[in-house]
């Protein structure tokens, strides 16, 4: 069951995990909006340790101004559910 729906505001987790991850550094701690649900895919952070546990992946749209402090474009990143929390 997917935790978030299209249109939800989410925040990518801050911090730098010890091992492999697919949460790009520039998105960490930033708020964005879910624009698509992409089904379930193995979480890379665990798959790399031999545990291919699938979980929902979302396309999350970030405003350049939020990421970089400037710019009018948007950046969409596909992020696993474990990388996200509800925006506060």
């Amino acid at each position, binding site marked *: 069951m997917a935790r978030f729906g299209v249109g939800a505001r989410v925040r990518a987790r801050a911090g730098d995990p010890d091992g492999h991850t697919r949460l790009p550094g520039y998105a960490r701690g930033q708020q964005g909006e879910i624009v698509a649900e*992409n089904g379930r*895919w193995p979480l890379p952070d665990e798959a790399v340790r031999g545990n291919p546990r699938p979980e929902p992946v979302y396309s999350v749209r970030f405003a350049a101004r939020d990421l970089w402090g400037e*710019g009018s*474009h*948007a*950046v969409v990143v*596909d992020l696993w559910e474990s990388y996200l929390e509800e925006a506060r």
Partner: protein
Amino acid sequence: MSGDHAELPAAARARQLEARAIAAGLITDAELDQVLAEAYRAGSPASGARMVARAWTDPGYRERLLADGGAAAAELGLGPADYLLKAVENTALRHNLVVCTLCSCYPAYLLGPSPGWYKSFAYRSRAVREPREVLAEFGLRLPAETEIVVWDSSAEHRYLVVPARPAGTDGLGEDELAALVSRDGMIGTAAV
């Protein structure tokens, strides 16, 4: 570009990795060649261009392509791929650009091997930060009011840009239209 590729540090590392894998008995030189030959044979930008031209001429196909890129590729006998393929459409108001900031993920079965610049640190870091400037360096100057959306790919989620159909192409057939579509157009660094 390919002339100096063999001198890059990454190329030296790849050669060492190949040598170690062969020495360890994991793969033979001939098998490695076969894998590479298959990868180059299977993918060509002509495949992606066929999909774009079909979308320009068949509204039903366009809808299916935007809803499920992998299924639309399969309709034309392309694939399957073991990742989600998403098609994103350029319009008068929006331009799409594809990058993979973490590595070099790319829909090779539709576009062929990725260009060297796609894998470069400069493109990967700048495309998400200043896409308008990057596009201008590629010779694509977009109107200020055109919104740019940058899609950061992953191994499991890869993107195909559907360029806007050029003006003055009403009389062209699907094959002629496909011939207009470039690899860079389907990455988003060219208009078509």
